[in-house]
């Protein structure tokens, strides 16, 4: 590999020299053979579809896999990809037909079996897949993934292959938007090679997406090349992508400025001020399906009183979201006015202003509300957060300042940093929180359901504050059973209003995705998951 890497650098250097000398040209057409380099982070877990729950591994899966559905890179709408049709009459039993003509890049045909095997593998307790719970709605999940003890079955009884290209799915309950969740990576099909020689597959994954893995040096680089025989209509417009692991996004940004890297999809906060100067219009800042909130420990009696609702509402009104997003985040965050995300769109359930005056900065009323609610528990609050990633400590301190100013008390709010993410999650799981804490949510799929149910439903997996409300649960149940999408969305919004009336969590801001790129690239876009749409990028 060494020689070819050097050769490529030489070509890049020459291309750069030509471009600066004015010999570049032909920007729009793009060279379908040219390879671009992009920043990457080392995936935390082995690269298996049902085992990848963070964005870096998800990036790769998104390039090398295509599932039954795919979320439109621009609108986020779930569209049929490998699914010819998904039929149901009762929102509980689904018959799925896989399109003809799809193969994996090793030539194996993608059949109904490829999906069923993959899903059974993902759900099986034995395989330690982090995303197993995604299959939790399928009948028979309890047997392959019991809460404790050994599994009593290898396959889920709710999955049945009925033909070469058809299979049926039986769920344990009605779930009308189930087909729309199938665009998530965990539901990708897997070739036999995955099961037959698992180690070899993990070292060099084989999928059915527009790219194939050419070389993979774990922890430092992955070379993806365009798959020439890709059967789908979203063929890659470039020759391939070299993903390079950067420990520090500042170094990636420096490399971009020096012309050694083509694409950075996470512009460091410290550079936001210079980005316009450095890159001009080669910079993108668009909404992503990420919302930051402050959650509360409802298991702590002090926060689970009738008056505490008013305290939470008061705290929310004491936060000057506008100022914080402007000064600290340079407008790469937008003040939140509901509990979802703008990427859902109005039809998808996003409703600006649903939070009403509780999300507006009104320091005087905030003080009044907190006093009415009996004051802060113990006279003060601490905001707990993990200090190892992001610029969390900066905004937490700003939020605290804002609260302190509103309450005229310098000691009302203090920040409580936790060293590592793992420790932070531990304290949450062990219910050790005594005051508000950082809760971020990046959607798995662009549905309003995904912004509400996992976070606020009783005992849901990401309900970190252990909030529980019967009215909310009932509304979500009804919404999941509703076959008419518009009505379902309406019910979810009613559930969201319950969240608002109880101020179960304080919405802070919607997070944007950002990207910067070199002069060689054009047509760079970010999808609603803040991942670059690699296959559409043109390289000149």
């Amino acid at each position: 590999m060494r020689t070819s890497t050097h050769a490529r650098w030489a070509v890049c250097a020459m291309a750069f020299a030509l471009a600066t000398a004015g010999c570049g040209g032909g920007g729009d057409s793009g060279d379908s053979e040219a390879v671009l380099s992009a920043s990457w982070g080392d995936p935390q877990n082995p690269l298996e579809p049902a085992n990848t729950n963070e964005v870096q591994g998800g990036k790769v899966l998104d390039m090398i896999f295509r599932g039954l559905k795919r979320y439109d890179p621009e609108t986020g709408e779930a569209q049929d990809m490998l699914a010819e049709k998904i039929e149901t009459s009762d929102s509980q039993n689904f018959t799925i037909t896989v399109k003809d003509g799809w193969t994996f890049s090793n030539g194996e045909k993608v059949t109904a079996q490829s999906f069923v095997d993959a899903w059974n593998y993902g759900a099986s307790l034995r395989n330690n897949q982090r995303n197993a719970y995604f299959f939790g709605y399928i009948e028979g999940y309890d047997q392959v993934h019991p809460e404790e003890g050994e599994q009593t079955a290898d396959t889920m009884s709710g999955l049945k292959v009925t033909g070469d290209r058809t299979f049926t799915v039986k769920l344990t309950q009605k779930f009308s938007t189930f087909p729309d969740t199938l665009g998530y990576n965990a539901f990708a099909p897997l070739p036999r090679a995955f099961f037959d020689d698992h180690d070899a597959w993990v070292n060099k994954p084989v999928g059915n997406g527009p790219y194939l893995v050419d070389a993979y040096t774990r922890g430092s680089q992955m070379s993806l090349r365009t798959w020439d025989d890709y059967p789908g209509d979203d063929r890659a417009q470039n020759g391939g992508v070299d993903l390079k692991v950067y420990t520090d996004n500042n170094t990636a940004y420096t490399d971009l400025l020096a012309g050694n890297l083509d694409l950075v999809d996470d512009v460091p906060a410290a550079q936001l001020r210079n980005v316009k100067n450095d890159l001009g219009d080669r910079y993108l800042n668009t909404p992503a399906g990420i919302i930051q909130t402050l959650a509360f420990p409802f298991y702590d009696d002090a926060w689970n009183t009738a008056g505490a609702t008013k305290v939470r509402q008061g705290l929310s009104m004491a936060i000057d979201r506008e100022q914080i997003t402007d000064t600290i985040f340079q407008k790469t965050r937008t003040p939140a006015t509901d509990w979802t995300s703008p990427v859902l769109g109005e039809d998808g359930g996003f409703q600006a202003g649903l939070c009403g005056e509780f999300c507006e900065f009104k320091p005087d009323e905030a003080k009044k509300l907190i006093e009415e609610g009996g004051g802060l528990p113990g006279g003060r609050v601490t905001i707990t957060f993990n200090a190892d990633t992001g610029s969390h400590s900066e905004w937490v301190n700003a939020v605290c300042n804002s609260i302190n100013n509103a309450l005229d008390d310098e000691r009302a709010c203090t920040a409580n940093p936790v060293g590592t993410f793992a420790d932070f999650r531990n304290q949450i799981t062990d219910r050790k929180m005594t005051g508000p804490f950082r809760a971020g949510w990046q959607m798995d799929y662009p549905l309003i359901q995904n912004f509400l149910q996992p976070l606020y439903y009783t005992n849901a997996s990401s309900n970190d504050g252990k909030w529980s409300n019967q009215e909310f649960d009932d509304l979500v149940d009804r919404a999941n059973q509703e076959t008419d999408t518009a009505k379902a969305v309406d019910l979810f919004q009613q559930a969201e209003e319950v969240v608002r009336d109880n101020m179960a969590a304080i919405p802070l801001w919607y997070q944007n995705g950002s990207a910067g790129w070199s002069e060689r690239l054009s047509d760079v876009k970010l999808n609603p998951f803040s991942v670059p749409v690699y296959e559409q990028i043109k390289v000149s």
Partner: protein
Amino acid sequence: MGRYVVRRLLQMIPVFIGATLLIFLMVNVMGDPIAGLCGERQCDPATAARLEQEFGLDKPVWQQYLTYMGNVFTGDFGTAFNGQEVTELMATAFPVTIRLTLIAILFEIVIGVTLGVVTGLRRGRPVDTGVLLLTLVVISVPTFVTGLLLQLLLGVKWGWIRPSVSSDAPFDELILPGLVLASVSLAYVTRLTRTSIAENRRSDYVRTAVAKGLPRRRVVVRHLLRNSLIPVVTFIGADIGFLMGGAIVTERIFNIHGVGYQLYQGILRQNTQTVVGFVTVLVLVFLVANLVVDLLYAVLDPRIRYV
């Protein structure tokens, strides 16, 4: 000599056990790492239990330590959370860091000692004052400032080098990171050599050598330098371990995927296996380097004999 080495090697055993135990406990104190593997959600209890079992976290700490040490002696350093063998991580990380350390040590010896000799022989002259000032600046500016500044100037503004090191990390790309890594130690080596040379210049054996009519060059290299290097060698020897483990900042700035990078990531993910494995090897490097330094004394100073 032989008995001395054996004694020293035996002394290493308790140091090695103590150091690894400390690291093991420290990583464990940070808490359960499994919770960090499931993103912003609670791991489902069944999977969490399986993972704990896989990484041996379900047993009491002392038992974990014993199993771990037992495995280490058979060459099994465990598995990182991303499914890679720790030995595999070491095989990719250590060669890179060793190259980086070699370059740094080379800079320290060549530039540091040369500057030290020059200034030591010309005490009080403008050269001496200039170098002293320069080393003061280098010592007082933190490494990450020097690193980022040089990276920006040489990499972006002037375009002489690539700001980051490629995954192969060949020697030529590591020159600047090596210099940055060595900078502070280099300044110390300069000052140490300078003081030592200046002091020994007035000693009896130098005067005797000069009186014998030996050429100046021979006096300086054979007599003066050889004796003055003893404290410098101690410093450089200890520095090897420090450079290998302490390259976290430099490796981060220049995106070098070496030991510092693996340690950093291991600590963030609370990956006991990675952190303890790497630190264990670093402890060994440190111990061996110290032994070599002590043996070098005998070579440099005829008055020292080991029995």
